């Protein structure tokens, strides 16, 4: 049997390939009932514009929701933490919806009121990925609004963290005011200084000259005291901690510029350098604003709490009650339903648990647990409801302990400054030049000491040094983002540029999580038999059953009825279809003949139809296409590759084929082993890039110099990572790394350029002949040309690399 994915019909809603072409509504195909339901809802409310704005904009529906999943939102205390304003008529609340990605999303989210009349208004802020909702509590409830959002595919990201501390508005308006004021004053001072330059300081009308200079003084005051205040404060803070940070020379330059200008104007010597001074402030503020915009655009500081459910059902006596997870205590009895997550380590009391630890370990086969067994936090129940007794509080559970590992205490890549190491020497070099100038002129012409030394401090502005890194990395972050690699901050680019060792975690990073290659060995199956197997497999929620069911051709004309069905968790299925008994499962379960059991590669599901053993389905991981080529490129660039997998070694031969014979491939690795492996490499002086997924990689991601978390859904990623990489773009990895390396070269080149500018300026300054005009030309020219240089070059390089 071959892969039936060759029939290429795409879901009208989410764009996924439809495995079952029988799901139809209004001549459109859907991949699943969930997507169809969403379509029907939108159609009913005349919101089909959603599908016109962008092609297949929908997010794959996750199926029906278990009632009670959002039950905690009915809890008054939880509600109060989330909502911003409440009255009898309206409640205002802002949801974070990381899934929104296109204009269709905006359209749908802003038209919520058409689906749910209780919603009075909904407004999207696309860049913050937020939707602000006003609803009428008399007509609907917070829980209903969230359930609606989740149903249409935009499940809001609600975490304990948000609930604990409401976040401050991300947008800093004060900074914009400062830029506006500085820009206004700078441009007007510049304009009023032109007559001075063109007449070389000899304006015919003396009254006019005085008027110009004094208007300039008036205009410069708000720049000095309002716009530049942050620079002074930062420099002062640094000095108090005995640190000479990059703001110190800038603050010194601004101070010297203004003081000397005021002195010259008051004493009637000249017009001063107010245009350059305000110019520095203006460009610095713009640079800073840009920096903040790019450096802080992603909030990665999620901890374990972001991953856990907010509420849980607790049984007290006979009554079931929803409480926030934080209030969970030892020996509480909780109920976990299908697809719900276990929030704390617990003992199974009632029911059969079939725990999916994929979130924790990356393994996708559920583990069966019997009554009395321990279930760790982070596992997801698949199947009927179970009753558990909590043995550890949330904050002491297995997963949360992994978080309390020492490596999570420090913030790597964070304390590293965004500026080039050369900048450290800038202040020292500058001060020594100033001292040298002072000594030189004290011997030759003491009257030139003051003008020359102040001119040195004025002209040698590190702003072009600062701007070059800010703008290069800012532009690169944008380009990476366009390719769905979201870096935590610009320091990660520098880390990435140094990488020489790359570790892959097999699960999910180089394989497709949702797709697997399925093949069949054994007696050829007839169409009827395929239909029987599909019917049986559809009954089970086990991933293998799902894969098998999805691989079968649809046969809607034949409705088969099951007369019996039983699932043996972790073993197999037993059913009777029509009058044919069917058994599917592991070799042990069906007691297969030996010839079938041997040479099993991948995971096998054996099938018994009637009395005869028909054959087996072999499910194998499907590797992303083009991975061999990427591995080749990475190796050619001098990187050492490793594979650390938490899985068993059934894929060893395939991985060897991809990665080559010399690559170390380790299987059955525990999170701790992965972490230790990276530590060992680092002791050998390697710069390690870890590419992983799953929560269990958190330690390894954190330990490595740069940790990428691969995610099919950017709303779910490991918090310890430095970057989120969309699963579909893993194969661009070689390009990403070489681009990061190129970026470093661009920064270095622009540094050399800005140093040349400084040399030109200083050569005027130390001779004591720096005229206000030269300063006024040199400063903006250097800043603007450097920004242009790095922006154009980094965009051009990206195009060259094919990003």
């Amino acid at each position, binding site marked *: 049997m071959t892969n039936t994915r060759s029939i290429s019909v795409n879901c009208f809603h989410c764009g996924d390939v439809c495995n079952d072409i029988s799901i139809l509504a209004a001549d459109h195909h859907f991949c699943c009932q969930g997507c169809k339901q969403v379509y029907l809802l939108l159609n*009913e409310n*005349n919101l089909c*514009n959603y599908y016109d704005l962008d092609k297949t904009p929908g997010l794959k529906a996750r199926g029906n929701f278990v009632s009670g999943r959002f039950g905690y939102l009915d809890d008054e205390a939880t509600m109060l933490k989330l909502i911003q304003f409440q009255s009898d008529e309206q409640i205002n609340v802002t949801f974070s919806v990381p899934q929104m990605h296109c*204009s269709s999303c905006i*359209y749908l989210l802003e038209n919520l009121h058409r*689906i749910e009349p209780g919603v009075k208004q909904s407004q999207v802020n696309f860049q913050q990925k937020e939707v602000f909702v006003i609803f009428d509590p008399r007509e609907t409830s917070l829980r209903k609004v969230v359930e609606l959002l989740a149903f249409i595919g935009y499940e809001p990201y609600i975490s304990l963290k948000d609930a604990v501390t409401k976040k401050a508005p991300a947008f800093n308006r004060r900074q*914009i005011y400062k830029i*506006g004021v500085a820009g*206004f004053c700078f441009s007007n001072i510049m304009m009023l200084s032109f007559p001075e330059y063109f007449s070389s300081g000899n304006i015919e009308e003396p009254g*006019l000259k005085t008027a110009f200079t004094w208007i300039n003084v008036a205009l410069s005051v708000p720049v000095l005291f309002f716009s530049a205040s942050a620079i002074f404060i930062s420099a002062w803070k640094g000095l108090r901690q005995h640190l000479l940070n990059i703001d110190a020379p800038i603050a010194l330059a601004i101070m010297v510029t203004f003081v000397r200008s005021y002195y010259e104007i008051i004493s009637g010597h000249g017009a001063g350098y107010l245009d350059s001074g305000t110019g520095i402030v203006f460009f610095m503020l713009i640079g800073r604003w840009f920096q903040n915009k790019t450096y802080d655009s992603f909030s990665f500081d999620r901890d374990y709490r972001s991953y856990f459910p907010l509420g849980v059902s607790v049984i007290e006596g006979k009554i079931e009650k929803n409480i926030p997870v934080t209030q969970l205590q030892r020996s509480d009895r909780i109920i976990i339903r299908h697809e719900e997550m276990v929030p704390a380590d617990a003992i199974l009391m009632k029911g059969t648990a079939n725990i999916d630890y994929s979130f924790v370990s990356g393994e996708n086969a559920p583990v069966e647990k019997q009554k009395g067994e321990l279930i760790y936090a982070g596992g997801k129940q698949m199947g009927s409801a179970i009753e558990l007794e909590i043995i550890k509080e949330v904050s002491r559970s297995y997963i949360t302990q992994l978080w309390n590992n020492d490596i999570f205490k420090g913030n790597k890549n964070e304390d590293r400054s965004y500026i080039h190491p050369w900048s450290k020497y800038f202040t020292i070099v500058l001060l020594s030049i100033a001292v040298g100038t002072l000594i030189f002129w004290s011997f030759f012409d003491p009257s030139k000491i003051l003008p020359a030394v102040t001119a040195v401090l004025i002209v040698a502005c590190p702003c072009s040094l600062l701007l070059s890194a800010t703008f290069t990395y800012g532009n690169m972050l944008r380009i990476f983002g366009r390719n769905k690699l979201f870096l935590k901050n610009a320091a990660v680019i520098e880390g990435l540029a140094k990488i020489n060792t790359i570790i892959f975690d097999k699960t999910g990073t180089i394989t497709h999580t949702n797709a697997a290659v399925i093949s069949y060995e054994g007696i050829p199956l007839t169409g009827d038999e395929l239909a029987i197997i599909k019917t049986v497999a559809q009954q089970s929620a086990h991933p293998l059953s799902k894969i098998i069911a999805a691989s079968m051709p649809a046969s809607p004309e034949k409705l088969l009825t099951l007369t019996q069905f039983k699932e043996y968790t972790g073993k197999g299925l037993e059913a009777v279809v029509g009058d044919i008994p069917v058994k599917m499962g592991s070799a042990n379960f069906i007691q297969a003949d030996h010839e079938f059991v041997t040479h099993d590669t991948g995971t096998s599901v054996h099938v018994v139809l009637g009395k005869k053993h028909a054959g087996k389905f072999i499910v194998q991981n499907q590797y992303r296409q083009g991975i061999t080529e990427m591995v080749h490129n990475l190796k050619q660039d001098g990187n050492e590759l490793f594979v650390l997998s938490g899985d068993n070694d059934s894929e060893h031969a395939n991985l060897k084929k991809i990665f080559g014979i010399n690559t170390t491939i380790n299987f059955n690795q525990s999170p701790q082993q992965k972490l230790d492996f990276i530590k060992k490499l680092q002791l050998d002086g390697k710069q390690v890039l870890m590419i992983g997924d799953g929560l269990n990689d958190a330690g390894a991601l954190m330990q490595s110099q740069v940790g990428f978390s691969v995610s099919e859904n950017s709303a779910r990623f490991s918090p310890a990572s430095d970057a989120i990489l969309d699963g579909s773009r893993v194969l661009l990895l070689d390009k990403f790394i070489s681009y990061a390396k190129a970026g470093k070269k661009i920064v270095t080149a622009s540094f050399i350029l800005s140093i040349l500018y400084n040399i030109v300026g200083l050569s005027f300054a130390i001779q004591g002949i720096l005229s206000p005009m030269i300063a006024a030309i040199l400063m903006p020219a250097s800043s603007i040309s450097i920004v242009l240089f790095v922006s154009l070059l980094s965009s051009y390089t990206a195009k060259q690399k094919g990003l």
Partner: protein
Amino acid sequence: MSALFVLIGISILVAGSFLAAFLWSVSNGQFDDDYTPSIRMLFDDNPKKKTSTPPSSKNNTNQ
């Protein structure tokens, strides 16, 4: 040359009014989100054509 004084006064006044307008627009929140409004204005207002849908059916949406 006294005409220049008047002209400079006027020019600063005009520039100042632009600054004031800018500061006002920032405080009014017009720069908080510079993407969504540009998309929002493109949406057609097509009114609900089906009003016959009973309101009770809305409750079935969240199963």
